[in-house]
C-alpha cells in the first residue's frame, strides 16, 4: 500500500491529521505507530503558544468545534522533546507549521529542515489570527502562494500546503500554491462555525468561533477534494470527517492520493489502525496491485 507524495514514501496512505494526534505519544498505547502511513504532528509555531482560554471545544451534530488556538510548545522544544520519541518509530513524520507572518513560517521551516527525523512539512495557511488585514493567508491566493514560496526557499523537504475550506473556490488557492512550488496540497482544514449557549446567551467557545470537524463536514470535504484533484497535478491529500476505511477510500476515489484522519481518533483511539486494516482488506478483496489504483477513479 506504499504511496509516494512528492518523493516522500509512506507505507500506506493513512496519516494522522494535525492537532488530533498530539505528537503520537498519547495514542502509542493504542495504535502501533509503525503501521501508520505518516504522523502529522500538531501545529508548531516559532515560539511556544499558550493557546486560547477554555472552553475550547463543543460538540455539534456529527462533529465538533475547536478553538484550541494552536497551543504548542514551540518548534525548538518540539525538536528537543518530541522528535526523539518519534525517531524511535519507523514512520514518516510530517511537521505542521504555522506562522504569524511569512518570515515566521520561513523560520519555523528552516529549523525543522535541520532537525533529523522530520520528513515533510505541512504548511497550515488556514489560520485566523495572522498579520495582514482580515483575510487569512489561506483565503487569498496571492498570500498563500507567497507563504509557499518562502517555505520552499528554506527547505529541501517536501512541502504540503494545507488549505482552508472557507473560500468561494478552493481550486483557485490550490492552483496558486501549486504554481508557487507546493509539492502537494492537503484539504480540508476546519469550516468556521459557532455554537451558542442559550441559557447564558454567550458563545460556547471563549474564542466565539471555532473550527468544525468530523463526519458533519465530510460531504464538503469530499466535494473540495474532488474539485481540487481535477485542477492540480500535484498530489492531493484528503481529509474531513474520515471515520472508517470506506470513508478514506471514498476520498481516494475522489482524487486523494493519501488521507488524514483527525477527529475520528477522539471517537475511537484505534481509528487509524482500523482504517489501515480496512484498506488492506479492500486491496486484497479487489485484487489490486496497489491501493493507488483507485485514486481519482470516480465515474461521473
Amino acid at each position, binding site marked *: 500500500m506504499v504511496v509516494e507524495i512528492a518523493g516522500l514514501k509512506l507505507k500506506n496512505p493513512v496519516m494522522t491529521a494535525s492537532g488530533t494526534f498530539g505528537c503520537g505519544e498519547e495514542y502509542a498505547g*493504542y495504535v502501533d505507530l509503525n503501521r501508520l502511513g505518516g504522523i502529522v504532528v500538531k501545529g508548531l509555531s516559532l515560539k511556544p503558544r499558550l493557546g486560547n482560554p477554555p472552553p475550547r471545544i463543543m460538540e455539534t451534530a*456529527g462533529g465538533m468545534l475547536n478553538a484550541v488556538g494552536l497551543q504548542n510548545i514551540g518548534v525548538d522544544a518540539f525538536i528537543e522533546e518530541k522528535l526523539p520519541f518519534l525517531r524511535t518509530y519507523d514512520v514518516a513524520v510530517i511537521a505542521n507549521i504555522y506562522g504569524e507572518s511569512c518570515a515566521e513560517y520561513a523560520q519555523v521551516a528552516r529549523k525543522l529542515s535541520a532537525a533529523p527525523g522530520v520528513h515533510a512539512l505541512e504548511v497550515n495557511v488556514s489560520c485566523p489570527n495572522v498579520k495582514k488585514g482580515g483575510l487569512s493567508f489561506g483565503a487569498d491566493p496571492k498570500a498563500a502562494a507567497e507563504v509557499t514560496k518562502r517555505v520552499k526557499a528554506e527547505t529541501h523537504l517536501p512541502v504540503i500546503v494545507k488549505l482552508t475550506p472557507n473560500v468561494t473556490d478552493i481550486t483557485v488557492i490550490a492552483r496558486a500554491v501549486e504554481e508557487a512550488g507546493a509539492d502537494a496540497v492537503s484539504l480540508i482544514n476546519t469550516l468556521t462555525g459557532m455554537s451558542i449557549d442559550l441559557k447564558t446567551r454567550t458563545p460556547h467557545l471563549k474564542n466565539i468561533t471555532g473550527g468544525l470537524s468530523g463526519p458533519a463536514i465530510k460531504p464538503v470535504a469530499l466535494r473540495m477534494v474532488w474539485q481540487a484533484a481535477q485542477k492540480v497535478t500535484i498530489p492531493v491529500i484528503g481529509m474531513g470527517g474520515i471515520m472508517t476505511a470506506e470513508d478514506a477510500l471514498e476520498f481516494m476515489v475522489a482524487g486523494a492520493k493519501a488521507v488524514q484522519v483527525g477527529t475520528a481518533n477522539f471517537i475511537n483511539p484505534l481509528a487509524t489502525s482500523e482504517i489501515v486494516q480496512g484498506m488492506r482488506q479492500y486491496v486484497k478483496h479487489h485484487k489490486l496491485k496497489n491501493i493507488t489504483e483507485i485514486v481519482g477513479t470516480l465515474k461521473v
Partner: protein
Amino acid sequence: MAIMNKQITIGSVSGNDEIRPGYVLMTIHVHRSFPEPRPGQFVMIRIAGLQEPFLSRPLSIFSFSRGRSHGLVKLLYRVAGKGTQILAGLIRGSQVEIVGPLGKGYTVDPSRENRVLIAGGIGVAPLSLLAQHLCRLSGRGANPAVVYLGAKTADELVGLDQLHKYCNSIRVCTDDGSLGEKSLVTRTFQKDMKKHDPARTSIYACGPKPMLQSLAGILKDRYFCQVSLEERMACGVGACMGCAVAVRDENGDKTYRRVCADGPVFDLQKVIWE
C-alpha cells in the same frame, strides 16, 4: 517505544437506574481483564456503534469490582444535557464502548493519615471510589476518612449509601436544610477545620466550580488539597488540547494543562480560576 497495552472495552449495561430524579447509576459488565482503576480516574463512554452523542462523555469511576467471570464498573451521573440524557435512556443489554481508566487520579500520601473528603453534589462520584480504596488500605473497622457531603437539596444528595459502607464519619449538609445541616459543604467543613492538623491532613475534593473556588479561599496554602476538575473533553487521552484548565506552573506562570491527561486531579492551590 511505548507498550501497546491500551484498549477499548465493550461493556454491557446491566443496570441504568434513576436513583433520584435526574441522577442515574449505571452498572456495566466488562471483561474481567479491565484494568484496576485508581480513585479519581475516569472513563470515556459512548454507545457502541452510534455517533450520537458524537463525543464520548467523561465519567468518573464510582465503583469497581472484579468477579470470576467479569468486572463491574459503576458510574453515577447527573443528567446534565443531551449526552447524559441519551445515556440515561439506555436499557439493560445495551452495549457501550469504554476507553479507560484514564487520567492520573488522586494520590494517597501514607504520611498524612488524616484524610478529609469534601464532595459537592455529583462530585461524590470519584470520592466514593477513593473512600473504598482508603478503606481497603486502612483495614477493616478503621475509619479511613472524614467525609463532608453536600448538595442543594436532599433529592440531589446522592452516593451516601455507598459512602456509608466505607466511612462512619460523614457530615451531611444541604443548601436548603432538607437533609443534614442547612449549610454549604465548604462552610460545614470550615467550622470543623481546626480539628484537622494541616501537616497531617490530606484533603480530597470534588464538586462544582464555585464550591472548589470557595474551598481554595478557605484552605489557602495551609492545607494540601487535591481537587478533581471537569472540562469538556474530546479525546480524553491528552491529544486534542481541548480540556485546558489554567494553572500555575513551577515558576508561578500561567499555563494550560489538560484535565484528561495532566489531571483530572490537580493541586487546588495551583488552579487559576478564570
